């Protein structure tokens, strides 16, 4: 017993010592903070606060707009989208040609282009990157499904690569920027159990981009240094280092920008935060019309929405002006069709639907199906989705249609949208830019061949299909533009969805940042054009 008591006393004494040491450590730590902090910051460093986490750096797996910075700053493609409206420019390719049947695309690579490890970029690397993209069945691979088959891409010589499409595709060029070229030897060296190097490339890079990865932590973000040997000539001024950090909280991103911790943050902040930033001395807000439409996907295959009069009643029941002017403070552009206003092929002078309850009642009176309560899907965590749904609910109640809101997270919503039985009666959401071609919107969303995958409206119109299919294989831009104009107008007239607005990008940057170039695909995050003032 004495021995136990002695041990307990000894343990208590030890715990006291450890506790004292701990307290002393904290005290020292806190005391040290009173001392002035010496700032050690590299010259010309661009720090960006991003809302999405850089969970994975693999350019053939990550494909969302929120994490675009790792792809466009660390990697290169044969072509690249620049500016707004987006222009397709030669990038790693110095030229390309298309065969008469529109099935063979031949690209000639720039001479002297190098990967970050100094090895030359060759056609075989493009072939490997294409094969890897297809094989992983993730990221941008869906863009090439049914168009580029495995084993069909060939390196004709070290500088020339040829894609053989299984069918002519007018959108192939538009998707080429998504073939991010990786260093074959480096990735193969890290392949494990036939994984195409996915485990390694998720936290390393094997690119040739304008910046070279220096540090990465999925919980924090990544830092990269300027790649001086990049094939695209650098301007006289540039940032030596870029630092993309994950800052999920909007208020923290805004305060960090105002304090000078960050030089830029995402351009889709709520309008009250934009107003707050506009009032700050050191912040410049760049305003551009983007290509991200907000609409309600309406289930056209289910009664009573399978009746065009009911769908028109829905479209006339939404207060577009109230939503855009009052709720969003005019920060977006009214867009009445399933195409961004600023892309070629978007119909001009189409008025679209207005908030007109009398017309809504007229159309409702023509509906033969019995009325029932509608289920309006809402994306959890996205205020605008909820606000739009509530506004429509209010309009519907005034014409005697009952509805209820079902707020669910994106994985649940996306799951239901793929299932005809589970799909909501309608759901408010966005359609972003994956490639700058009208097919990205009206083609993906309303071609009946995409029903159940990207056509979540179960909309089918043979005339629209014909126009879209023709536009997809035609190489005549006039034909394509005319077809998309007609198709988008027909979808709007069919009231296949409730088309609300096209997003505006309000890019907040520190005034010291110059040379910002916005492109809807790159989201204004391609840093190679930016440079510090002075």
């Amino acid at each position, binding site marked *: 017993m004495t021995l136990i008591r002695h041990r307990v006393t000894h343990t208590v004494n030890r715990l006291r010592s450890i506790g004292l040491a701990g307290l002393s450590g904290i005290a020292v730590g806190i005391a040290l903070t009173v001392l002035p902090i010496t700032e050690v910051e590299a010259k010309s460093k661009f720090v960006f606060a991003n809302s999405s986490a850089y969970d994975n750096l693999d350019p053939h797996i990550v494909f969302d707009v929120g994490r675009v910075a790792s792809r466009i700053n660390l990697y290169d493609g044969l072509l690249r989208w620049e500016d707004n409206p987006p222009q397709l420019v030669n990038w790693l390719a110095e030229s390309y040609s298309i065969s008469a049947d529109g099935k063979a695309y031949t690209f000639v690579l720039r001479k002297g282009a190098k990967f970050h490890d100094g090895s030359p970029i060759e056609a075989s690397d493009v072939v490997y990157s294409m094969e890897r993209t297809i094989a992983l069945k993730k990221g941008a691979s869906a863009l090439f499904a049914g168009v580029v088959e495995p084993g069909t891409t060939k390196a004709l010589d070290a500088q020339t690569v040829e894609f053989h499409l299984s069918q002519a595709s007018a959108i192939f060029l538009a998707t080429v920027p998504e073939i991010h070229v990786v260093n074959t030897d480096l990735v193969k060296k890290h392949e494990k159990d036939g994984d195409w190097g996915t485990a390694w490339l998720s936290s390393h890079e094997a690119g040739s981009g304008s910046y070279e990865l220096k540090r990465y932590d999925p919980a924090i973000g990544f830092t990269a240094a300027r790649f001086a040997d990049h094939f695209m000539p650098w301007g006289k001024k540039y940032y030596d280092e870029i630092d993309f950090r994950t800052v999920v*909280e909007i208020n923290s991103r805004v305060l960090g920008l105002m304090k000078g911790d960050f030089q830029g943050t995402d351009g889709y902040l709520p309008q009250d935060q934009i107003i707050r930033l506009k009032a700050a001395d050191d912040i410049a807000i760049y305003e551009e019309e983007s290509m991200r439409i907000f609409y309600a996907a309406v289930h056209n295959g289910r009664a009573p929405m399978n009746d065009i009069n009911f769908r028109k009643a829905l479209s006339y029941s939404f207060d577009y002006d109230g939503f855009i002017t009052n709720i969003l403070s005019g920060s977006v552009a009214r867009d009445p069709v399933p195409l961004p206003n600023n892309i070629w092929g978007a119909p001009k002078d189409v008025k679209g639907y207005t908030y007109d309850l009398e017309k809504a009642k007229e159309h409702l009176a023509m509906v033969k199906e019995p009325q029932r309560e509608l289920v309006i899907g809402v994306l959890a965590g996205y205020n605008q989705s909820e606000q739009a749904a509530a506004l429509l609910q209010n309009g519907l109640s005034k014409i005697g249609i009952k509805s209820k809101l079902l707020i669910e997270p994106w994985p649940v919503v996306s799951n239901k949208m793929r299932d005809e039985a589970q799909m909501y009666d309608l759901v408010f959401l966005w359609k972003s830019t994956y490639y700058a071609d009208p097919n990205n919107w009206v083609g993906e969303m309303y071609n009946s061949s995409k029903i159940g995958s990207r056509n979540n409206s179960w909309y089918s119109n043979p005339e629209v299909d014909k126009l879209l299919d023709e536009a997809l294989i035609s190489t005549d831009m006039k034909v394509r533009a005319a077809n998309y104009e007609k198709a988008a107008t027909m979808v709007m007239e069919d009231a296949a969805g409730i088309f609300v607005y096209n997003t505006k990008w309000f890019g907040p940057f520190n005034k010291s940042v110059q040379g910002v170039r916005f492109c809807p695909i790159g989201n204004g995050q391609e840093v190679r054009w930016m440079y510090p003032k002075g």
Partner: protein
Amino acid sequence: MKFLVLVVNRCLWFLPTVLGLMVITFTISHLIPADPIAAAAGENATAEQIAALRVKFGLDQPIYVQLYRYVLAVAQGDFGISLYTQRPIVFDIATRLPATLELTFVAVLIAATLGIPLGVLSATHRNSPLDHVLRVITVSGLAIAAFWLAILFQLLFAMKLGWTPLQGRVDGWGPDSVTGFFLIDAVLMGDLEILQDVAAHMILPAATLAFPAMATIVRFTRAGVLEAINSNYVMYEEAMGFPRRIIVWKYVLRNALIGTVTQIGLIFGILIANGVVVEAVFDWPGLGLYAVSSILQSDYNGIMAFAIIAGVIFIVVNLLVDITHGLIDPRESR
């Protein structure tokens, strides 16, 4: 002996408790009507791509088969692959857990260091102005939302006064990771500048977490001291002429701390949960943000790993609380 039996008993319950936690978490996370595979595959994924991914992650199997495989894998330290990040969960957790634990430890330390003495003072100065002031502070601590307090601290101390950093765990990338605990790593590196920077970044998030915890500790300590101070042995010691200071801080406090220590164990678990909000506001790269992201993406493996690890931490901390009880209260050791 009784104490040893208690510890062994607690240890024996460890495995069944964790197993039960795994079964419950697994069942709940698989009952959600979401399709994490479809979400992970991306907006443009085809039905074939989604089906291939489902097979790859074994989600095409019956749920009991999935559960059996999962338990076996976790027993070998394998939490699976994240559906979202595509990396082993162990890697994702390992990069974030030290940040959360460090913040929680410091917050608990601050809360206990301030809360216990303030609780004693509140009790010994019962119904005095000091007691009233402390009551206002502690009630505020319990009532104020962590989210609001965090933003208030940011606006005042970081933006207005410029005394502390606004967010993050450190400027730049911090010390070379040895333990993942930056305070310790900075000390190991012998780099005072980084230590100072890490400590500065720690102040606001730790204070936000510590404030409500301190309030709880003050209230429990006060109640414990008041109960003990009215005991016969205190009256006897006073009659014997012991100085009041010795009676309170040596004898009364030891008896009063039993309830407080239990609370500290519970607080530790609560702070890990509250850390989600604080980590979001202060951009603290911890486990809380990872858990939220996993939930929003319906990343089964991430959700289950977080629940299991948080559960294990909670169980271990409460085991330590039981041991501490034994050390404080000799009756537990007999």
